[in-house]
Every structure is written in structure tokens, then in C-alpha cells.
């Protein structure tokens, strides 16, 4: 794993509309990023909140520093091979900033 991510200053790194990729990381322990979106690309809908990190709070820590949490929209077709519904269907997941990186080709 890489070193601790940026955003210790609470300044959100991403903006609505940005294409992002969820890190394909699989550390042990308590994680609020669902398996099914790791490694997948989505679009930032909005900044949902700035919150303590549950990965720290789950083990008695205070979760500092607080981190931006974004609402990330994924096209169902990008999540599930052979998705049975219309291509416009989406899943929106709340994801902490340290789980996100710019999608390739999204200069930033």
C-alpha cells in the first residue's frame, strides 16, 4: 500500500463530474468501500460529507483527520458483465476520498 493519501486539510480533491477510479485495494480489516466497486470507474456526483475515517474509528481511534466522502455514480453496465437492464441504470455509492484516484485519461 502507498503512503497516507492527501486531503489531511479537508480540501476536497475531486469535483462533481470528475471521472474517478476506486482503488483496487484489498487490505484486511474494517472497510466501508464495497468489494464490487473496487477497481471500477465512476463519476463524482457530489461531495456528500466530510467525516472521520471509519477505518480508524472501528479500532478505537478517533478517525482523524476527517476526510471527504463523495457520492460516486457507477453505470450498471460498468459494474456487471451482461447487466440485464437498460444501460442507463446506475448504482451510487458513498466513498471516502482515500479510496479514489483520478480515472486514466482524466487529467488532474
Amino acid at each position: 500500500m502507498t503512503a497516507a493519501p492527501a486531503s489531511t486539510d479537508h480540501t476536497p480533491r475531486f469535483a462533481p463530474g470528475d471521472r474517478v477510479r476506486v482503488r483496487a485495494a484489498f487490505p484486511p480489516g474494517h472497510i466501508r468501500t464495497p468489494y464490487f466497486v473496487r477497481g471500477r470507474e465512476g463519476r463524482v456526483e457530489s461531495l456528500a460529507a466530510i467525516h472521520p475515517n471509519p477505518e480508524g474509528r472501528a479500532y478505537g481511534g478517533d478517525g482523524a483527520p476527517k476526510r471527504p466522502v463523495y457520492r460516486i455514480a457507477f453505470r450498471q453496465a460498468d459494474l456487471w458483465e451482461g447487466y440485464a437492464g437498460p444501460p442507463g441504470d446506475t448504482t451510487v455509492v458513498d466513498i471516502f476520498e482515500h479510496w479514489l484516484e483520478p480515472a486514466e485519461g482524466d487529467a488532474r
Partner: protein
Amino acid sequence: MAKRRHHDMGGLDAGPVEIADHDHAPWEKQVNAMLRLLADSERGVMTVDELRRGIEDLGPGAYDELSYYERWISSIANILLEKSVIEVDELGRKMAEVEARMHEAQAASGKAEAGKGAP
């Protein structure tokens, strides 16, 4: 190494949704209320994140076999032990005392055999 944990189930195969519900038993309501007290800002004895971590760490077998609030109270008890809010021996003694008392109370009320018929 891409390992999916057992509680992280989005997208897995599963059977039809059984559209069922039940009225919560008194002990289930008590677990729910207790967690909210323990995790409130006034007390802060434990966090909801710790509750979840404790549930996840019960392991796949327990996660699937236990009911929802059985998982909760198992996690709450473990977290309270871990934080030394309670100790193993006092919990064991208290459980023995409580169990005896619950049987006595149930026998006295005649509810043990009445089963589910009660309102």
C-alpha cells in the same frame, strides 16, 4: 490478493428475497436501545464503526447462523470486554444469575409453554 469478506456481499448470487418481517422481541429492542446509548455523544463508550467491525469479525459461520440482533449483542459484548468496560468473569457470573432468574420469571408467568400466541 483480492479477497472478498463474507459480509461484503453486493453482487453475489443468492435466492429470491423472502419478503418477511417480524415484530421485534423485547430483548432485540433492548439490544438496539443499548447500542444507541453506548454510542451516543454523551457516553461514547463505543462507536457504530466498532459495532460493525465486531460483527464482521464474528466470522462467516456466526455471521450467517446468528440472527441480526444476536450478531449485535455478540459484537457489543466483545467490544465491551476488549475495552475493559466489563470483565470476563463478571460477565459469566452475571449471565448465570440472569439465566436462572429468566427461567424463574418465565415459569411464574406461564409464558414458557404459551409459545408464540401472546399478543
